[in-house]
């Protein structure tokens, strides 16, 4: 619960202050509005659409290993992508 996933930045849109991040084969766009000096190749902790802070590659790998050990990552990738028929609330965009 209350997990933040480490992800690697693969590209940055400076004008929009957003980035594309990779987690295994999955790609997602996130906001960089809350952090400074993010660069392609950096690892960031992602929480509901925002990069929270940069972390070292070593810390990212350790965290991903723990998440994978818990079986959360595999399940996640199997489920992806999963469009929902309902409309998300404000909290859903956090």
């Amino acid at each position, binding site marked *: 619960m209350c997990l933040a*996933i480490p992800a690697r930045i693969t590209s940055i849109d400076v004008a929009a202050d957003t980035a594309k991040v990779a987690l295994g084969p999955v790609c997602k766009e996130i906001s960089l*509005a809350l952090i400074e000096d993010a660069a392609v190749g950096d690892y960031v902790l992602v929480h509901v659409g925002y990069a*929270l802070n940069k972390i070292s590659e070593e810390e990212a790998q350790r965290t991903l290993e723990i998440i994978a*050990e*818990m079986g*959360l990552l595999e399940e996640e990738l199997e489920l992806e992508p999963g469009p929902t028929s309902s*409309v998300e*609330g404000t909290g*859903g965009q956090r």
Partner: protein
Amino acid sequence: MSDPGGSLDIQLTPSSGGLVCTIASTRPVAAASAFVGRTPQETTARLPLLFSICARAQAGACAAAFEQAFGGVASPIIRGRREAAIAAETIREHLWRILLDWPAILDEPPSREDMAAVLALSNRILARLDPAGDLFGLDASSAAGQAPGLDVLLADLTDLLTCKVFGIAPEHWLQLIGDPASFERWCRKAETVAARLLRSLLESGEASLGQTPIAALPTVSDEDLLARMMAPDWAEFVARPTWQGQPRETSPFTRVYPLPLIEVYGAGLLVRLAAQLTEVATGLRLLSRGTAGSAAAQPTVASGTGIGLGRVFAARGLLAHLVRVEDGRVRDYRVLAPTEWNFHPRGVVARALEGLPPSPEAQLRRQAELLITAIDPCVAFTLTC
């Protein structure tokens, strides 16, 4: 990539008897079982990496659980530092809601620049409180006394809260919240997003929305909670907890209860949002008092039996960790988090949503989102109504 932290699917359906709310959760409530087989040191090092949103609260509950299991107690200075770090984290979590989610309710853009400043500042405060990164370890040795440079950072945080959240000094705000008339004047005059949101509730007549008969989680002894989390049906308990057969609430609202505002506005939306603001201001007060051990940071009772329960009050309510250690290895690790109490299928959110008055769909959705945001699930949610 949805969130492996899980999400909540909240559905609100009209029926002949009124609205019916169902809440389904995919939160991995038994994930901490993955620490089984690890050493205590491995567990305390890994747990904050995994639960990184409320990392200090999680680490605080973890450290307290191991200390109780081993019969050790951290020094008053370490306990004070831990409490301060958890307060800094709690402030940051509430500001996430206040600066990013509250503006959306008012159709205003999120205050991302302000939240970025909050994140940077809270990271620096946490680094000063825990310079060696071992504050929540079992052999915590963080330097004693006042953290150097902390005063300047706290002054910056006070300025930020004054300008962006309260519009007045946070200490002054804490005084006026005790007087409903002064509080209402603040709502009507202050020009921050927090004041504008509360003002909008007063003007729309929605201040009392969402009152429920759900009682607060009472003070539960370590022995009773420990027995419940060790029972054979513990997995059901941590997923959908009840106490004495009833769903309960544990939240900023129950923590600051009773606010005098309840007499005027009822225990509804406005008071719940005010409780979150109160937690920000009292968290700053705790941080500003210094970190050399505060009266509130009581030691846990050391059992030394290999079984320990650690409890902290996290941003969203009571967080409890249970650990059982045998032969130097974790045999059981269980977490009971506030979201499971508050978003119980028959809990405070479900009952508050079912109590919403009949209204057009757009208005119903807006009010439902307001209530969910005010009780704050800490994970993403979808709302269908």
